[in-house]
């Protein structure tokens, strides 16, 4: 790419540079002045936007383990083209989460303490270790893509040998910490609003992350397809409509499972009464359920919506919004009433978060541009059978 092309200002480039600049200033203030001066956190609301955002970051990065398991453990190779985007998403998502965690820590210089100081009874300890291990797994899973580019064959061979145990470990680590984010709140039955508090919180978190993680991949595929069609032509990538429809079916199953579990939870614990009490929490709960569960279930149950790329894109946005609402409700809104303060994130909290999001998107684009992430399956398709390539509609967006 030519330098003047990079420097050519577009709307998003200007906005991104502004956000990152503001974020850097905020980061400087955060570390030089402390949490009190730069956040709206108080003693009764000690966790805020940053922790909430960690929740969604991890939830939305969940496709890393589901797709890897589908392809490498269940040997459904149709989904192979989704593996690399999913792992890259997970890797970048987790990097973002780790950065934000360090920003949020009161004593960031002690971030390494969990490595040597252990309390195995702490959910937080388990999550920390799972995130460390899983980020290692993601590095190993994505390494071949980088090594391929530089034509290093020996390490790729070695990674191939250990690949199956690595994938299995990744699935287990993910299962544990995805659910454990819900377990964090098991110890506050008196604080978290009963609409969200449940002894099944870990299961709710696990099921919802599967649906949202896959939706994130559908969303990204659509975005990438749009970006690539303009430049290189998207038919070079292996993303086919039937693959995304297949992923959407899994989203549907996960959403229904999650919804049934919620119904069971409400009936079993006599929580239905809370649905009739008018309050901010109730409205937010309805919003979360309608946008994130009911609408997507309704739309996905129609074949024509499942097969249509534009509708899939809209549905994926719904499911992602549902997860974002859910995690923020659990970590912020659901605790507001019992804390007695109305927490709203400060400018610095928001600007640091936005900066990291912009950097994550930038990193994703950069890697996708320079490494074979959305790999062409063309050669493979052509040699094996030309028929299936015609059958499956490619997502090209120029209509």
């Amino acid at each position, binding site marked *: 790419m030519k330098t003047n092309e990079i420097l050519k200002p577009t709307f998003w480039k200007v906005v991104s540079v502004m956000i990152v600049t503001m974020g850097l200033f905020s980061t400087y203030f955060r570390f030089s002045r402390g949490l009190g*001066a730069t956040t709206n956190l108080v*003693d009764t609301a000690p966790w805020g936007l940053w922790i909430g955002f960690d929740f969604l970051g991890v939830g939305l990065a969940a496709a890393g383990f589901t797709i890897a398991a589908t392809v490498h453990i269940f040997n459904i190779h149709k989904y192979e083209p989704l593996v690399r985007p999913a792992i890259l998403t997970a890797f970048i998502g987790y990097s973002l989460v780790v950065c934000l965690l360090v920003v*949020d*820590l009161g004593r*960031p210089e002690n971030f390494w303490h969990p490595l040597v100081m252990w309390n195995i009874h702490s959910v937080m300890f388990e999550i920390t270790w799972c995130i460390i291990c899983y980020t290692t797994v993601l590095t190993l899973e994505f390494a071949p893509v980088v090594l391929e580019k530089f034509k290093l064959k020996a390490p790729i061979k070695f990674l191939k040998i250990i690949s199956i145990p690595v994938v299995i470990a990744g699935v287990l680590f993910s299962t544990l910490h995805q659910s454990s984010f819900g377990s964090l709140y098991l*110890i506050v039955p008196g604080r978290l609003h009963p609409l969200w508090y449940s002894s099944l919180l870990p299961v709710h978190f696990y099921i919802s992350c599967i649906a949202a993680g896959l939706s994130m991949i559908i969303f990204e595929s659509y975005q990438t397809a749009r970006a690539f069609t303009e430049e290189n032509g998207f038919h070079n990538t292996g993303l086919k409509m039937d693959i995304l429809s297949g992923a959407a079916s899994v989203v549907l199953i996960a959403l229904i499972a999650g919804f049934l579990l919620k119904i069971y939870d409400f009936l079993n614990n006599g929580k239905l009464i809370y649905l009739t009490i008018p309050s901010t929490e109730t409205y937010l709960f309805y919003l979360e359920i309608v946008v994130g569960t009911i609408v997507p279930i309704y739309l996905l149950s129609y074949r024509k919506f499942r097969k249509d790329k534009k509708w899939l894109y809209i549905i994926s946005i719904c499911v992602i919004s549902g997860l974002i609402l859910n995690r923020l409700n659990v970590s912020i809104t659901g605790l507001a009433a019992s804390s007695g303060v109305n927490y709203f994130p400060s400018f610095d909290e928001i600007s640091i978060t936005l900066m990291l999001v912009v950097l994550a998107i930038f990193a994703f684009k950069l890697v996708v541009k320079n490494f074979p992430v959305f790999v062409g399956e063309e050669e493979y398709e052509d040699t094996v059978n030309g028929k299936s390539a015609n059958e499956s509609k490619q997502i090209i967006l120029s209509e």
Partner: protein
Amino acid sequence: MLKEKGILFDVTLCVGCGSCYQACKEKNNLPQTNKDFLKDHLSNNTFTVVEQYGKMYARKLCMHCNEPSCVSVCLVGAFNKNVTGAVLYDADKCIGCRYCMQACPHKIPRYEWGTTQPRVRKCTLCIDRVKAGKISACSEACPTEATLFGDMDQLVAVAKKRLKDDPEKYYQQIYGLEEAGGGHVLVLSPVPFEQLGYTSKLSKEPMPAFTMRAMEKIPPVVAVGGVFLSGMYWLTKRKNQIANEEKKTTNGNKEI
């Protein structure tokens, strides 16, 4: 060997003089935070407060739980339960995740938000004084014996005796004996405790039990999950292999 120590606070005896508040500040070298001690609240510079409810006064401080949430949730073990019964914090271990503040059923731990080296702050049950054979600063300062310091078993006996001897005077409950699994600060009051701002409706079960029920499922999930995934890998691979072989043979047959 030290016996487990604790505090018994009796609302009916408290006159709201603020001696305990002042003694706590002096003992812990804490700066003044409010001219009117009755209007002050717990903070990084205030480990105990006296709150006014009509003609009654209620003290708030760390309850030094038997099975403390803060000890169980802290990932680096910066909190521990001392043999004296005190729940203590070690700032050198702390990474500042503030899960302890989120998890405490009594909402006690406070944070030094204003510094770049923040610590979690709360009552230590005067651990240094107790180790030196003295009683806590607040109970020493109390002119009416509303705050008693002593061995836990004796305090429980005293509290039970008071409830029994004067059933008209007291609401028949020892707050802190069973709440959230019980702790080392007991409270007696003439009225139900939620009227004095104490967290009510706490389970009698220690809070860490809520987490343990989920945590104890981890080993079986890992074991079953590991076996299941390995099994599925082997099975589906074998299935694909057989399918491929069959394809080859049928293709060959047709050609012949």
